[in-house]
């Protein structure tokens, strides 16, 4: 474990100044502490963000939509009755995410930035491609939990339950660094590690997530979140599905289907959304959309079941929009 020093700034500006080479930001620490202990992160200093005011909690305005501060503990989102009314998919996605303790510790920003849970990646003795090695051990090894879709050199899967839920609301994230601010579609913030990009997130050095924003219009969508686990609690998703759509006259509009646990990033296929525009979301339509989403599936030795599972969860999550 690296020997790091520590500080806790009170303002965002201070934090940005402190984030330089060798320093890392920490909030809940639920992922970072594990990364440090297993040598996957080797900071010489930690900047604790939890003392910063203004990045906690959420607010809603018609013009600006829903804004959730990056330092908001997951449990605050999960337990808020008001938010449940406003953006139900968020709470649903958090209900089975980790445990009460981890939801108390973990923050929105940290959840989106958590690194993948591939057991080869996490095993410090395995020099896997993502860590700078030459090959993906999971591709030929033990891969029941790995990607069936969209993978390149690395077959890990995106672990966040929250991410698919937010993406189903067309969420953006706001990032800040000492160079300025930028807003990124959350969907494109997650990247598939490939080529020279041996990482999962499009975050730049010295940059912090400050908030997640959901356009007001997207909150008119109904939505649901389904998660299949191999234990009834405290498991990363085998497959998770967030769906959202505006339902009018029994027909679906602006459909969103985001699948977790199947690809290196939350998996979304716009063609499937288009296909369901104006659909009554009957079984056949839902399954046809699922087939579009899963069309490129190339299961590995042990994860063919995920295709079956994803297809069925997509169907159910879509059906529930009109149920």
């Amino acid at each position: 474990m690296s020997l790091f020093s520590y500080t806790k700034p009170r303002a965002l500006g201070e934090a940005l100044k402190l984030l330089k080479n060798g320093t890392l930001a920490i909030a809940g620490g639920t992922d970072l502490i594990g990364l440090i202990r297993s040598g996957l992160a080797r900071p010489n200093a930690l900047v604790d963000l939890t003392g910063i005011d203004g990045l906690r909690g959420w607010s809603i305005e018609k013009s600006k939509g829903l804004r959730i501060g990056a330092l908001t503990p997951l449990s605050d989102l999960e337990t808020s009755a008001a938010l449940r009314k406003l953006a139900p998919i968020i709470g649903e996605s958090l209900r089975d995410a980790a445990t009460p303790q981890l939801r108390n510790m973990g923050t929105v920003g940290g959840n989106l930035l958590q690194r993948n849970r591939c057991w080869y990646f996490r095993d410090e003795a395995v020099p896997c491609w993502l860590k700078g090695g030459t090959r993906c051990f999971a591709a030929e090894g033990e891969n029941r939990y790995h990607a069936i879709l969209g993978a390149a050199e690395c077959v890990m899967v995106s672990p966040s339950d929250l991410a698919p839920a937010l993406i189903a609301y067309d969420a953006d994230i706001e990032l800040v660094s000492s160079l300025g601010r930028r807003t990124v579609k959350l969907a494109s913030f997650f990247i598939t590690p490939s080529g020279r990009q041996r990482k999962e997130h499009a975050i730049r050095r010295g940059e912090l997530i400050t908030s997640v924003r959901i356009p007001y219009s997207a909150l008119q969508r109904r939505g649901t979140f389904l998660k299949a686990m191999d234990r009834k609690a405290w498991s990363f998703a085998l497959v998770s599905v967030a769906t959202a759509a505006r339902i009018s006259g029994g027909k679906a509009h602006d459909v969103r289907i985001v699948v977790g646990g199947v690809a290196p990033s939350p998996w979304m296929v716009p063609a499937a959304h288009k296909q369901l525009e104006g659909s009554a979301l009957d079984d056949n339509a839902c399954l046809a959309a699922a087939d579009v989403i899963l069309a490129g599936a190339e299961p590995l030795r042990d994860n063919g079941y995920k295709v079956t599972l994803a297809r069925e969860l997509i169907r159910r999550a879509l059906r529930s929009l009109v149920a």
Partner: protein
Amino acid sequence: MPGLRVVKSRDEFEGEIFESLSIIQGSDLPPHAAGAELDEIGKSRKRVDGVQRVTGRATYTQDVTLPGMLHARVLRSPYPRARVRAIDTKKAEALPGVRGVLHRFNAPKAAFRGEETIFREEVRFIGDEVAAVAADDADTAARALALIEVQYELLPHVTDLEEAITDGAPKLEDGGNVFDAGSLKRGDARAAFKDAEFVVEGTYRTSTQLHNSLESHGAVAQWDGEVLTVWESTQHVFGVREGLRAALLLPLSRIRVICDYMGGGFGSKGGAGKYSIVASLFAKQLGRPVRCVLTRHEENLAAGNRSATLQKIRLGGKDGRITAVDHVSWSNAGQGRWVANPTGPTNTLYDFANLTTKSYRVVTNAGSLSAFRAPGYVEGTFALEQAIDELAERMGVDPLTLRRRHAAAQKDPRTTKPYSLKRLLECYTIGAREIGWSTRRAGGTRGSSPHRRRGIGMGTQIWGGGGGPPAYATVHFNSDGTVVVRAGTQDIGTGTRTVLAQICSDELGVDLDRISVRIGDTEGPYGPISAGSLTLASVGPAVRLAARDAREQFLGAAAGVLEVRKTELRMERGHIVSKGARTSIAEVSKKLENNTVIGKGSRWPNPEKLSIKTFGAHFAQVEVDTLTGEIVVEKVVAVHDIGRIVNPMTAESQVQGGVIQALGFALTEERVVDRALGRVMNADLEWYKVPTALDVPEIVVRFTDRPDRRANNLGAKGLGEPPIIPTAAAVANAVANAIGVRLRHAPMTPAPVLEALALVR
């Protein structure tokens, strides 16, 4: 002392004869009179050590901190098989705070399980011990490990059971990888198969289950120049003492082992570990106390497991009976020297007339198996009880009816001895009623929605649990009339202190709150390992005799103090009673001043002409989502025939725990090993999935609760293992009933369920 006798006793378990000597005195007590209402035995009682457990004040080995204590960490092999050529420790030793380094080139010989040293020349699994460091703190020790330079010569390895039994696999021992581990023939199975009307055949696979006791293995050793005192999280303080004697060649009088509280063991903490020897060697060498406690990761590599099995079972049926049985099992023992026997239930549970069974131990480059709660029986029952259901279905017989035909016999088919007590049919009756067996339909029933199917299934349990000698106890009166029970047993978490106090209380007529039980210390009288479901049936009768002895002595002393004849006195609820006069025990004790009355008791041998077993049956109701492969266990009914129940509340807890651990085996738990690397990928509690509170179904616990009056003076038998044995089979049978396809693989995760339903491309 007059009347001491030595008797030899022979107990059979799985065809193996265990002989022991016990020193007994006078006569054994008869079991409590039939129907007698006792004040304590048979009553639900809160644990006498409950306050310690809920306040965090119970001292576990992890909590022992001694002045000047050093921290030892173990360097473990990063390769599944390699020869240790050279070790350079210069850099590690130069690290400030490092006090000692041990490895194969400098460590004193220390015999361990048939080997001369704890550091092998050929390391044989990832996690095998290579060296150890003692330092001022755990971090320094860990940093020092990274500075030790080892030259390894890599050797070909094999970790997978089915790969290891193939001809092409690297041969790990002179005799290859596969070793006979027992066989049995009864009648003529070959002829019976020829003659059978129906034959079913199946290959079953069970996965490696990791104990994951929450407190990891560990020891703290202190050497004062005369006595080595070791605190260890163990199921057998005397076993640890014996292991340390063999390793360190110290006289027993100079080794003391203490285990006040322990955070689970489930079979894996049966004796001294290499960590105990490491701590002890350092403590002797460096003259400071040394702690060596495994991390979770080490625990899951090197502290034992339930071996994975491959089992082939074939049953033949005719005229509504099972007429032929053939069961062969291979177990992945890793580097273990023994193996549990998955064919045990097949050999002993039913009155099969024609049977052949064979069991093989397979050596691989993986961590050694160690006993895991009903080793072999959980795995074997999973296969046997599914095969019986399959045959019953083929024959068109209700599976429970078929079992009843073979479970009624009152004779042990293995030894032909009559059972001391067997009420298995009653278990079936109770369980069938509680689960609603009559509502079971071939092909299952519709579940809570159209794609969900509901099914009911059951499984049967047989296990030993009769206990036996040697086990000793003492009971002494303090001068204030309070009582201390001492026994060399330890509480693995079942509530040992509480039941021993209850037994003592009834025998003495002294209230529970005036009795203290001291266990987990080799300075007490010898006690057996807390395993094999034998603690209560072994130690309990000895405590009862010790209490009687103490009572008789105390009455004798009281006679002198009160100046009456002893025969006129009796002990009753804290008082000495004679002809209407009542004197409190405390008052008499006070008069005796410090003349301590110490009663002694020992466990008498088991009746040689009887077979003492425990029986039970579990019934499960499940709902299966046929489109996602999710299995929801809705209800488990667990019925056990284990003789007298001393404390219904703690007994029920044990059954619930057994069922839940079994559900882990059945549904979620599996050690995953990368074969090419030989690495355990989930040596943690993240991907190795033990059940959570949300994985628990409704659990109905029932006991036949009839004292086994011929077994021992309590009529009680063991309960630790029985409740983990039949659950997985019951669940698998319920799943097969629900979806019409049989899963022959544990754990039954969504993947195999969907595969069985042929839904996976």
